[in-house]
């Protein structure tokens, strides 16, 4: 037996650590470029910028944007990334001032990526979003849908006047598509409960022509609804087949896996890619430190910026002639806006000083009022606390749950009855409907008010549905 050599820290290892860390990061994130691009970006090389813009776009947009058939140009992606980063509170102004064509700014993009990574568990969140689901799932709440920023709304170039009838047409089309989607979903639910082996050809593709919807000025796009191949009452028919005893039966995906070898192979591929990404994520967590040290050096190479506290819209360079006129006006407006903001700040300070003086002068009266206020606030807080504790007994469901048909009396460790979940969803639906009615009432009042403003006009309201 040879003497076991003590491992010396190999200098070559240190040199390799950084690229390996970045490679792990690339493998975890969707559409990530190679470590070489990262290195080039540090030195602000132009070829690195487009790749990083695309990476940021894929990281920030929710899953649905990936599978959308519409592909966004680099410019559109750049604009969208800037707006999302700004809305999330990204502090560096230099990113916003980068060109829209995405040709420069590799270093700033690196900093933005690092900022996103530092804020929260980004790779883990992305992996959860693209998780391969094997069970029949039922979404129980919509927290995730609400939290993520919507997919990018494509820019609409308003050429002159907008044809209101065209808008009505598009709105009607959207409404009808929603109705068709609801009908399709209801059909799917109905068929899930049918007798086994009844041959119903319920496969369909509700194909959503997103290019048609691109013209809509709404932010959300309708997600594609893909009904899987023939569904029967698989849950009861495959009782006892599952290797996992707690589940007991197969789901639709698993049954399809057994029936259709091609589909099974594709599912396997997807699982393998997901595994690879998970392993990369683990590796990334181990090697993170090296990356952050390197990011420090990137930050050092950036020039310091004295950023003004407000965000002003970017005005393109003034051109000569008539084309430049509106731009010059915009410039003038911008200067005016800045001056107004200065004035406002001064006025606010003056007011605040005056109020302080007034407050100090009032004496016991004011102090009594303040005490009463504090007592009221404390009571409110106590009431909220009490309400929260009352409600804590019912486990608030979150995220999609796998549907399992079971004879057991008690739901498992993490389970809850479908009835409870549907009750919670119904309550939420009732809440939202009440809110909708209230908002509709407000709109109607507003319309009535507008009608009263111009007595000469005759308003024909739309037929009540």
């Amino acid at each position, binding site marked *: 037996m040879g003497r076991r050599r003590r491992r010396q820290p190999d200098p070559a290892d240190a040199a390799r650590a950084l690229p390996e860390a970045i490679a792990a990061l690339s493998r975890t994130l969707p559409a990530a470029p190679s470590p070489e691009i990262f290195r080039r970006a540090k030195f602000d090389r132009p070829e690195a910028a487009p790749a990083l813009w695309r990476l940021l776009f894929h990281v920030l947009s929710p899953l649905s944007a990936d599978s959308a058939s519409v592909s966004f140009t680099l410019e559109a992606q750049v604009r969208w990334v800037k707006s999302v980063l700004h809305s999330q509170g990204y502090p560096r102004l230099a990113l916003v001032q980068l060109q829209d064509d995405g040709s420069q700014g590799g270093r700033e993009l690196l900093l933005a990526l690092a900022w996103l990574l530092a804020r929260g568990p980004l790779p883990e969140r992305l992996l959860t979003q693209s998780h391969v689901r094997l069970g029949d799932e039922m979404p129980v709440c919509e927290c995730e849908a609400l939290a993520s920023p919507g997919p990018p709304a494509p820019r609409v170039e308003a050429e002159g006047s907008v044809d209101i009838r065209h808008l*009505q047409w598009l709105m*009607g089309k959207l409404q009808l598509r929603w109705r068709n989607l609801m009908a399709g979903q209801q059909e799917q639910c109905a068929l899930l409960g049918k007798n086994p082996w009844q041959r119903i*050809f319920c*496969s*369909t593709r509700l194909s959503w022509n997103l290019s048609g919807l691109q013209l809509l000025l709404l932010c959300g796009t309708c997600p594609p609804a893909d009904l899987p191949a023939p569904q029967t009452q698989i849950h009861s028919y495959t009782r006892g087949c599952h290797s996992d005893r707690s589940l007991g039966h197969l789901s639709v995906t698993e049954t399809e896996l057994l029936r259709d070898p091609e589909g099974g192979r594709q599912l396997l591929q997807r699982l393998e890619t997901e595994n690879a990404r998970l392993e990369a994520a683990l590796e990334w967590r181990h090697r993170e430190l090296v990356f952050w040290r390197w990011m420090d050096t990137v930050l050092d190479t950036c020039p310091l910026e004295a950023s003004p506290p407000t965000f002003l819209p970017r005005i393109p360079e003034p051109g000569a002639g008539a084309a430049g006129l509106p731009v010059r006006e915009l410039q003038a407006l911008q200067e005016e806006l800045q001056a107004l903001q200065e004035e406002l700040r001064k006025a606010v300070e003056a007011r605040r000083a005056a109020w302080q003086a007034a407050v100090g002068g009032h004496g016991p009266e004011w102090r009594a009022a303040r005490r009463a206020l504090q007592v009221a606030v404390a009571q409110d807080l106590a009431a909220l606390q009490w309400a929260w504790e009352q409600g804590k007994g019912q486990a608030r469901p979150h995220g999609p749950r796998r549907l399992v048909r079971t004879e057991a009396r008690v739901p498992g460790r993490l389970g809850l009855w479908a009835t409870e979940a549907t009750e919670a969803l119904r309550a939420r639906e009732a809440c939202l409907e009440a809110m909708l009615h209230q908002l509709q009432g407000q709109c109607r009042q507003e319309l009535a008010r507008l009608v009263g403003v111009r007595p000469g006009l005759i308003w024909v309201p739309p037929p009540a549905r």
Partner: protein
Amino acid sequence: MSIVTVQLGQCGNQIGFEVFDALFNDSHCPGGLCSKRENEAYQASCKERFFSEEENGVPVARAVLVDMERKVISQTLSKAARSGRWKYGQHSCFCQKQGSGNNWAYGYSVHGPRHKESIMNLIQKEVEKCDSLSGFFIIMSMAGGTGSGLGAFVTQNLQDQYSSALKMNHIIWPYGTGEVIVQNYNSILTLSHLYRSSDALLVHENDAVHKICAKLMNIKQISFCDINQVLAHQLGSVFQPTYSREGSFHYRRNPLGDLMENLVPHPEFKMLGVRNIPQMSENSLAYSTFTWAGLLKHLRQMLISNAKMEEGIDWQVRPPLSGLPPLGKMSVNKETHFNTSIANLVILRGKDVHSADVGHHRALKRVLCAVRMFSPVICQCQSPKFILLKKGKIKTLVLVAKRNPCTSM
């Protein structure tokens, strides 16, 4: 998804019978150009839409028959039962004794409220038999009393009770020189009510269909039966299962949904028309050959010149070029009869459907107001009897949304 048919009045019931007969015969006709598996898929899809299964295996039409007289309904029921291949449900009909006397108000204000419960119960039972409801198809005429008055009432009630289901009313435009004196009043009243409560109005004109029978089908003594058969042929071509152009793997599930989405999204434009080509008697079928290009060309010209059949098309009508002044300000000499339609849907059925090229009809895009493509649909080939055109990307062809309702009375 299933469609529940409501047959109202004498006209509605007679047409309804022919429609179901045509649908059933088409889906069960032997031969055809497809493999056995495709045939079975077609049959199953058609069956799911229009028929429900009963114990002894005879398909039962998903229909509710309503009339204020007994005679027509009993005739319809017996005709269906006689064929032995399909039938109407025993308890799916509602009839009274006294009739409506061609009086719209009698149908709407007297019969309607009086018999509302029974009729809506019947419809509810049909709806419950469906796994999933695509919508309602209501067949009625505008000239009589029951079809028009009671039809308007029933549609309104369907709107109230099933607000999420789609409704298509199939209305028969009476002969210009019709028998009923008050048909004009009946028609106007019906249309105004239907425009509010229905989603789409599919119009068939008696005059046009009569001409088709006379000129194209070469029928000497044209009876209502012949007219109804032509109507049923056209309707069947629309409602039989179709693929979409992109993916011809499965049949599209929601026929009414597809039609509505593509043709009537705008709340003000609801009237539809059907143009079918070629339309001919079975005897002539053996002596004719068709090409897709020829058929499409004829169909396009039929559309823009507002011709209802493929004979006597005015080939002079052209879509106005973009250089000319807009349509509203045409000079008196150049009175063009260009038919403006807002949306069109093409259904193609037959051999070599994929070779049909609808591309060169883009010229119409400029003129019609701002309508983009719809999801294209190509139908699977079955009996060559049904040859319709249904496609997206281009305007023209089968279904046309008209701008001006009630252009002629």
